[in-house]
Every structure is written in C-alpha cells, then in structure tokens.
C-alpha cells in the first residue's frame, strides 16, 4: 500500500509523515503525476493563505492530477487549507478559485467583532456529529465531543449539508470541522497535532485506503 502526501511547498508535512509512521504506515512526499495516480491514499496538506496554496497547486499542474485521482474513487484527505481548497472558491484576499471537488465556498469565520473574540481560531475545540454517522469514516471510534487542534481564520461551507461530517462551535458560530463526499475527506483541524484522537483518524484513513 502507498500513501502519498502532495508536495507543493506548503505546510508542515513532516508532522503528517511522522503521524503515519507512528501508525505503522510510511507516507511519501511527491508531486509526480504517476506517483500520485498510483497512490492508494492521497493527502493534501496545507497551512496559510488560500491563494498562495492554489497558486502553488496550479504552478505544479496538480489541480487536474488531483481531480483525475478523485475520479478513481480512491481515498483523499485534505487537512486544514488542504480541505478548504477542495471547495469551489474562497473569499480570502478577494475571490480565489479552488479545486472544486466539493460544491460550496470558503469564508472568514463570521464571528461578531468584539475585543473578547480572538482570530485566528487557535487551539483545542470539540467536534460534534452532524447528519452522517461516524462509523466506517475517518471518525470511526472517535468519541463525540473529542478535542481536536485548530489553527484557522477561514471556514469551508459545503452547499450540501449531507457532506458535513462534523461541526465545531466558536463564539456561537457553528462551522464545518470535517467533511466527507464519498471517499473524499477533509479536516479543518490538524489530526497530526491532535494527540491520540488525531492519530485514530490517521489510523482510520489508513484502513479506508486498504
């Protein structure tokens, strides 16, 4: 089995590689078309600005490769910015086009401006169930209300609510903290930084790829 992490010069990929290795599965870094299409599981990592991420994906011709990979129905996991880029567009720094695998857009966390509210949303927060059951997904065996580690200012809003796997609340705003469309998954939080429960997600993803 081969897990490939998309190498486009963005994100702390070392931690993701370490997390997979900890769960007994080596993950490889690549931006090569054949390697990506030959993967049994694909990871799209990412931190930072949406436009910067998309620019780099486009620069290496990765958008079409990712779309081609998804057509094979093999598992994909987007993490943080990697999840946001799966949507159609983001309002970060004007409108930027995303990969568009998930219908919907990315907007700034719509919290009310107040000196009590901090942005970016940094830290541990709970994930809750939405309409999809967690069994047989990346959240298999993860308890409801588990804490995951978040670092973000923008959130993904899938048009289809049935694609929302979990939600999280921040200052009264409930947002999509993970999503699922067939074998395409996304986590707004960082499973590779979310201690043992995050590592359970990595293990589940490995099992889905088998």
């Amino acid at each position, binding site marked *: 089995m081969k897990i490939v992490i998309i190498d486009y010069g963005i994100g*702390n990929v*070392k*931690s993701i590689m*370490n*997390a997979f*290795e*900890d769960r007994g599965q080596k993950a490889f870094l690549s931006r090569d078309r054949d390697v990506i299409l030959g993967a049994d599981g694909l990871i799209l990592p990412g*931190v*930072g*600005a949406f436009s910067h991420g998309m620019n780099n994906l486009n620069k290496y011709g990765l958008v079409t490769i990712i779309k081609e990979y998804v057509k094979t129905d093999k598992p994909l996991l987007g993490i943080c910015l990697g999840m946001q880029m799966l949507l159609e567009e983001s309002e970060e720094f004007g409108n930027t086009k995303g990969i568009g695998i998930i219908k919907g857009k990315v907007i700034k966390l719509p919290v009310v401006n107040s*000196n*009590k*509210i*901090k*942005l*970016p*949303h*940094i*830290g*541990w*927060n*709970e994930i809750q169930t939405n309409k999809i059951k967690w069994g047989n997904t990346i959240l298999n065996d993860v308890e409801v209300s588990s*804490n995951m*580690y978040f*670092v*973000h200012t923008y959130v993904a809003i899938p048009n289809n609510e049935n694609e929302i796997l979990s939600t999280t*609340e*921040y*200052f009264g705003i409930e947002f999509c903290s993970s999503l699922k469309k067939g074998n395409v998954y996304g986590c707004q939080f*960082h499973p*590779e*930084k*979310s*201690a*043992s429960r*995050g*590592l359970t997600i990595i293990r589940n993803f490995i099992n889905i790829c088998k």
Partner: protein
Amino acid sequence: MNKTRIIARLDIKNDYVIKGIHLEGLRKVGNPNEMAKKYYNQGIDEIIFMDAVAAYYDRNSLTGIIQKACKDVFVPITVGGGIRKIEDIQIALNAGADKIAINTKTVQNPNFIKEAAKIFGSQCIVSSIDAKKIAENKWEVYIDNGREPTGKNVLEWAQEVESLGAGEIMLTSIDKEGTKKGFDIELNKMVSEAVNIPIISSGGAGRNQDIADVIQSTNIDAVSIASLFHYKIETIDSLKKYLINDKKLHIRL
C-alpha cells in the same frame, strides 16, 4: 468553545532543559526529548522549546531536538531562541516545528514579523514579549533573554506586533519568571484586552491556584508552565482535573 491551553515550556541550554529565576541563575533539570515525551503522554496541549542562550550567543542548536521530539509528540510544537533570519524559520519548520517564537530580532527590525508572516502565515509566528514592570501600570519590553531594556512600552508593542501580522503573543513577566509567586495579573489583563490575537501567559506559576487566577481574571488563551511541571509540584493530569472540576474552566482532558 475553545479550551484554554496548558503549555509546557522547556528552556534549553547545551542539550539540557534548564530553569532559572528571572530568566537567570540556570540549573539543569533534565533531557528535553524525554521530558517532552513524558508531558505529551500526560496530556499536555502544546510544547514550547526555547533556546535559552541562543539570543545571547547568536546561534541556534535546537534542530536535532525538534526532529526527535516530532517523532513522538503529536501536539503543536513551538520553537524560539536565536531566530535571526527567514532561513532560521525555514530550518525550524523543516525540522517539524509548527510555530516560531521571535523576540530580539523583531524589536531590532519590526518588519521581520511582517516578512515572516507573509511567507509562512501568521499562524506560525508567535511574538515573544519579555516584560518588566517600570511603574504602576507600565511595563517595558526587554530583549536578549531579559538582559537588555529597549525603551519600548509593552502595550504599544503588543498592538504593533499584532498589526505586523503576529498570530499569537507569548507574554513573559520577567519580574515573576521562575519565582513561583503567581502570574502578573495586571500585565496579562492589560495586554489580553488590548489585542485580538491569542495570548500565551508565561512566568510565575507556582501552584494550581495561580493558573486558575490568571485564566479567570484576564482574557488570555493559554498558560505556559515550566517549574511547576519540571519540579513535579503538579502533574498535568492533576492540574487539568483541578481546573475543570474545581474551577469549572474549559480545559482539554
């Protein structure tokens, strides 16, 4: 609701975790990788490695320790001490760090924060501010591990680093650091209410009540703890249970 983070701070000198008082008078307390792993297994929310002498001697030696720590610690890791160039940040991130704490360099060249945030994103830039009280409700920014006064006002500097693109502020009270006499509540209250980025409060935790006090009476987002854990005065688990059960605070268990 977001949880207040409990962070273990490991100050490092010559491959050992060290601890001093008022950032001086250092003594060895253990091996950084063993301590990081132990704290992770006990449920720490985050770990900060600070190269205690790097700013002074103008060097950085943490890379090997970070590489090793990232293999068995799956919570965020921040690295600070001696970050001078964009290249230093890249090296620390490549080693596996999630965030970088910078102090001395940013005071000398505030645009360094802007440049770093533009390249790596604000989420990975922690502005470390060492504050010393100089008058009632007035604190001065110090650099070089609390050795050099800068003439800068802490409140104004905190607002400036926010506007320059820092994603978080680690606020250390030099007066309280290592004393185990509790946090500087007024300092933390003032800064945490004046900026909209998260504040990590550092310096002074001597008993679990001190930590509850600073969380309850200010708007901080995280506490950084050294002595209390290093000298086994408190375990991470018992501290968290106290904050959750006795103080009804939002903490991750």
